[in-house]
Every structure is written in structure tokens, then in C-alpha cells.
């Protein structure tokens, strides 16, 4: 057995993964992503990997990716949320309504009040669906399918179908703004510091308890890889200039939001009791119950969380359009679910990572972006995406079977 494990390429990759504490599945996703990027770059004559396209790709990915981090927790706890796109439209309209009808348009406080209301409403309505699911034991599929029909219709009531536009100009920064070259470097330096601090903190707490730690060389290589990736990211975002200008745009605000939210979500998933209960409940609901976990509150909490993330998604989407149309976010739930599943979240529950969902979202968006660049019409695009989703679920089933 041990001999079989150690020979062959996959065995080698697995061992490398163990040494670096990386998931082999994650590594293969990164591999697929790189392959897709190289393919589209060649097929588009170098357009795909241009700073301009990568900047746009990052913005396009942000909404799906940030909601997908919440979808991971929902699916891990054996649920599904089909109401995302519809709830996003409702929350966007709610925000626009507050900025234009309730408060004075361009009023000094309009932007942040509407943001707070959207976040609170997202958590409240997402949580409400969660409470119905958890406390009345109605399958999440049914409740959120109801939400899918309900929320867009509720949005219509606000506006009678009229598109709210324009929106507050400060608010619009959330969609199209970027933070400039200097602040991009500051953010990336801070990010690198946090990564380094985290690696050493983990190493130190292990050593204090007398556990073996990785060779310092391996840690240093990891740190260099991280710093290199972060610097490459900042460099790329800064390389896309404002029109007729030498100034780089820097990190787009939606991407900055995504980075912050994804970090918080990774913390919640891996380092809090709530996250632990989500995974434990997904692995064995009965065990969670018998261990004294308040499972109903955990499940409802996951839906409140994704509702709040949907509000952030609504802000970015409406701010980008400078409008809150009723049609926004259509089929978004499927893109979000696909991102989570492609990123290794198992529909059977109990398995899934935040990082995986980010890579899944980027992979999907790269496919779509690349197909646009090489001139594939939109219908075949959707057909390809559908194929990729089913392929990802099939891969997951093979993977799960192998682990048994």
C-alpha cells in the first residue's frame, strides 16, 4: 500500500500536497485554471492575459465569488439557496429606493444609510428563510425556491416595474471605483504581512505545545510564493491605466470588498465555533444534535450570512450599472452554486472550502470572459457553462467514492 502510494505522478503530487499542507483537489483546480488562461491567451492573441482584461475579469468575478463564499457554508450544512438572484434584485431596488425616494438624492448621508439598510435587510430576509427552513423543517430547496419567486415580485411592488436610476454618486464607487496605485501597494503589503504573521503564529503555537513543525525552509518557500502572488496581483491591477493617463487604476473596489469578505468568511469557516458546527452538522446532523449544538440556530445563521453577502452583491451590481433594474441578478444563484461546486463543495454536505469557491468562481468567469474574447456567441457560452457544472458534480462524486 505504502509502496503503491509513493510511486506515480499522482502519488508525488499528493505527497507534495501533504508537505505543503495543501489539498490535492485545490491544486488540480489551480492547474485547470492555469490551463484555461493559457488556452484563451493563445486563442485571443494575448488579449486574455492583458492587464485590462484581467482587471475586468477580477471585477466580473467579485459578485459571484463573494456570494459563493456564503453558499459554501449553506451547502456544507446540507442546504441550498436558490433565492440569491431574486433577493439581490430586491435588495438593490430597496437600496435605490432609499437613495432616491426616501432620502434626498446625492444627500450627504444617503449612501451609507442605504448600505446599512441593505445589509440589515439582507441578513433579516436571508435569516427569515433560514428560520423557516430550520425551525419548521421545510427543505431549503422549497423555501428558497419560494424566495426565488417572492423577492423579485416584492421588488416590483416598490417601483411598479420602473428602473431606479441614477443612483448616489458616492455609492457608485462601490461598483466602478478603484483605489489607485499607492493604496493598492499598501493593501497588498498589509495582506502579505498578515499572511506572514499567520504562518508564524501557527508555527509558534504548534511548537509551544511540542508538536512537530514544518522545516523552516518549507515555510519560507510558502511565504515567498504568497508574497510573489500578492505582488503580481498588485502589479497587474496597477498596470491597467485610466483612459489617456499614466496613472494605474489599482485594485477595483469590488475586488477589495471580495478580498476582505473572503478573509472574514475563511476565518468564520475555519476558526469559529459557528464554522465548526456548520461542518460538523453537515457531516452528521444527528451527532451535532447529540453533542448539544443548537443546530437550528446554526442552519438559520448560515442563511442570514448568505443574505448579508447577497446585499453586498446587490450594492456592487447596482453601483456598477448606476441603476437598480428589476432584471438584475437573473440566474445568479446558479452561477454561485456552480462556483461553489466547481470549487470542491460537495452537494452531499460536510465538505467545501472558501478558497475553493473563490477559485471556482474565477474559473467559471474565466471561461465566460475567454469565450467572449474569442467571439463565442452567448447561447453556446451558457451551454458550455452547463456542461462544466455537470462535469464538476460528476468529478465530486468520483472523488467522494474514492475516499470511502
Amino acid at each position: 500500500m505504502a509502496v503503491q502510494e509513493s510511486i506515480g505522478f499522482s502519488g508525488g503530487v499528493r505527497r507534495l500536497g501533504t508537505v505543503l499542507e495543501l489539498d490535492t483537489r485545490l491544486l488540480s483546480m489551480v492547474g485547470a485554471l492555469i490551463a484555461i488562461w493559457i488556452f484563451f491567451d493563445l486563442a485571443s492573441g494575448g488579449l486574455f492575459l492583458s492587464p485590462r482584461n484581467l482587471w475586468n475579469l477580477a471585477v466580473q468575478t467579485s459578485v459571484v465569488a463573494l456570494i459563493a463564499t456564503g453558499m459554501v457554508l449553506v451547502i456544507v450544512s446540507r442546504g441550498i439557496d436558490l433565492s440569491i438572484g431574486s433577493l439581490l434584485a430586491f435588495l438593490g431596488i430597496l437600496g435605490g429606493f432609499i437613495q432616491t425616494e426616501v432620502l434626498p438624492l446625492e444627500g450627504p448621508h444617503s449612501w451609507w444609510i442605504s448600505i446599512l439598510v441593505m445589509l440589515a435587510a439582507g441578513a433579516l430576509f436571508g435569516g427569515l428563510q433560514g428560520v423557516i427552513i430550520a425551525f419548521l423543517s421545510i427543505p431549503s430547496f422549497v423555501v428558497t425556491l419560494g424566495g426565488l419567486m417572492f423577492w423579485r415580485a416584492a421588488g416590483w411592488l416598490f417601483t411598479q416595474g420602473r428602473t431606479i436610476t441614477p443612483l448616489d454618486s458616492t455609492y457608485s464607487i462601490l461598483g466602478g471605483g478603484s483605489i489607485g496605485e499607492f493604496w493598492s501597494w499598501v493593501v497588498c503589503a498589509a495582506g502579505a504581512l498578515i499572511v506572514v504573521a499567520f504562518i508564524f503564529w501557527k508555527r509558534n503555537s504548534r511548537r509551544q505545545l511540542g508538536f512537530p513543525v514544518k522545516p523552516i525552509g518549507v515555510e519560507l518557500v510558502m511565504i515567498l510564493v504568497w508574497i510573489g502572488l500578492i505582488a503580481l496581483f498588485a502589479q497587474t491591477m496597477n498596470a491597467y491605466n485610466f483612459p489617456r493617463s499614466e496613472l494605474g487604476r489599482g485594485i477595483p473596489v469590488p475586488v477589495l470588498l471580495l478580498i476582505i469578505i473572503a478573509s472574514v468568511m475563511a476565518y468564520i469557516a475555519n476558526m469559529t465555533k459557528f464554522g465548526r458546527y456548520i461542518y460538523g452538522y453537515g457531516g452528521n446532523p444527528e451527532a451535532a444534535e447529540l453533542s448539544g449544538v443548537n443546530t437550528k440556530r446554526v442552519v438559520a445563521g448560515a442563511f442570514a450570512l448568505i443574505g448579508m453577502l447577497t446585499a453586498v452583491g446587490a450594492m456592487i451590481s447596482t453601483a456598477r450599472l448606476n441603476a437598480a433594474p428589476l432584471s438584475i441578478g437573473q440566474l445568479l444563484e446558479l452561477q454561485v452554486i456552480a462556483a461553489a461546486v466547481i470549487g470542491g463543495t460537495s452537494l452531499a454536505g460536510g465538505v467545501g472550502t472558501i478558497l475553493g469557491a473563490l477559485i471556482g468562481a474565477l474559473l467559471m468567469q474565466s471561461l465566460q470572459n475567454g469565450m467572449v474574447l474569442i467571439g463565442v456567441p452567448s447561447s453556446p457560452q451558457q451551454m458550455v457553462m452547463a456542461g462544466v457544472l455537470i462535469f464538476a458534480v460528476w468529478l465530486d462524486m468520483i472523488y467522494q467514492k474514492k475516499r470511502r
Partner: protein
Amino acid sequence: MPEPTPAVEMRSIFKHFGGVHAVEDMDLTLYPGEVLGLLGHNGAGKSTLIKILSGAYPRDGGEILIEGKSADIQTPRDAKAWGIETIYQNLALADNLATPANIFFGREITTRFGALDEAAMEHASIRVMKRLNPNFDNFHDAVSNLSGGQRQAVAIARTLQFNAKIIIMDEPTAALGPHETQMVADLIRNLKAEGIAIVMISHDLHDVFDLSDRITVMKNGRHVWTGDVDQVDKDDVLQMIILGRRPDGSYAPGILSENT
């Protein structure tokens, strides 16, 4: 000699699932530092009875006293607060989590800032698992990758970690080989020596006679007989389990009508 206060007294417990009366008018008494064998054939209501004690099921009727005090146990959390720990028949482990996460599931150690303290939990897990299985060193894999005996050890470690006063074991050796069974038997003796009261459900009469001080037999959800192990032999016990016939020749309530 005055009788010591029982660690657990369950009086006239009732529980039904729809039309099925799983437990009816059942009594159980457990003294500190003793092992009580709970016997009965499949479907007799043993698991249901102990799940009422561990808070997994709310009872429909009856009373529970812990060390003489009335205990209103409604949830697993309540039971744990009374010092009752349970090893369930199906182990109730979260298969996708690693050993430390399972041992501390529901009662995680956190840092000052409220984050999970993984290192501290792993450290404590290593210590408690050493007591059960000195060779065990797989603390990072999901428990679905462990052997039956190792999983059993993880389930037992869950109870040891939290200083239980009362431990309930539902068929703790059913999935184990002879070596591991011996290990669990030694463990039960050690726990007993520490003054912990243990209820053990088992099908293996040899184990029961070997480890128990007293036995309680139930049939069709009802109490048949309770007494010292040395008052009866295996034949007597089998008669009670299968026929509901006590050593003195009388029948448990609700049995006679069925057999005539």
C-alpha cells in the same frame, strides 16, 4: 448500612413514538461507582431509555433524579450539565471532522479572542487518546478514515475529556475485535475505580457478568428485574430477556397476557 444516594434514579418513565410504546413505566437506579448492565433483546427499549437520560429524546412521563435532586433533562446540553456523558450505539461522530474536532465537538476550546484553539484541542486529544490507545497517532485525518476500534476510542474519549460523573455506554464493544474489547473492559474497570457510575448496554452476557455489579432487564419497554449479578446465572438472565420470566417464576407486567 444505609443505602447511598443513587447517582441516577429514573422513575416510571414513559416514551412512545406514534403508536409504538418504546418505554412504559420503566424504573432504573444507578449507584455511584457501580456498573449496571442493562439487558433486553432488540427493540426492548434500552436505547430509548438511555437516550431519555442523555437528553436525546424528551420523555412523555416520569421523573429523573440525579444524586437525589430532580433533574429536568430535556436536551443533550442539560444532561451534560448534570455530568452525564453518553457513548451512543452508532457513536454519533462527525465523520468529516478529525479526531480533536470530534472529541471537543460542541465544547470547543477557544482563545482569548473567541477563535478555536486547535493546538490546545489537539494537545488535549493526544493525552486522552493515549489513555485509550497508546498507538494512535492519526490526529489530522477525518474520522471516517479510522478503523472501527479507533472510532470507538474517539467516542469514548469524548466522555473522558469532560470529567463525567455518569457514563452511559450503548453496546460499546459491539463493533470491536477481542483485543479492543479487552481494552474497553479495562477502561470500564478503571472508570469504576474512579467512582464513576456506568450504565452499560450489551448483548454479550459474558461481558455483562464480567463487568457489571448489578443488572436490570427490560422487555417490551417494561422493567422485568433488577438485582446483583451473583444472584442469577446466565440461564436465568436469558429467561428474563426472552420470556420475561423472573428467577422466582413470576412474570413481568404486561408479559403474561401475551404468552397465553
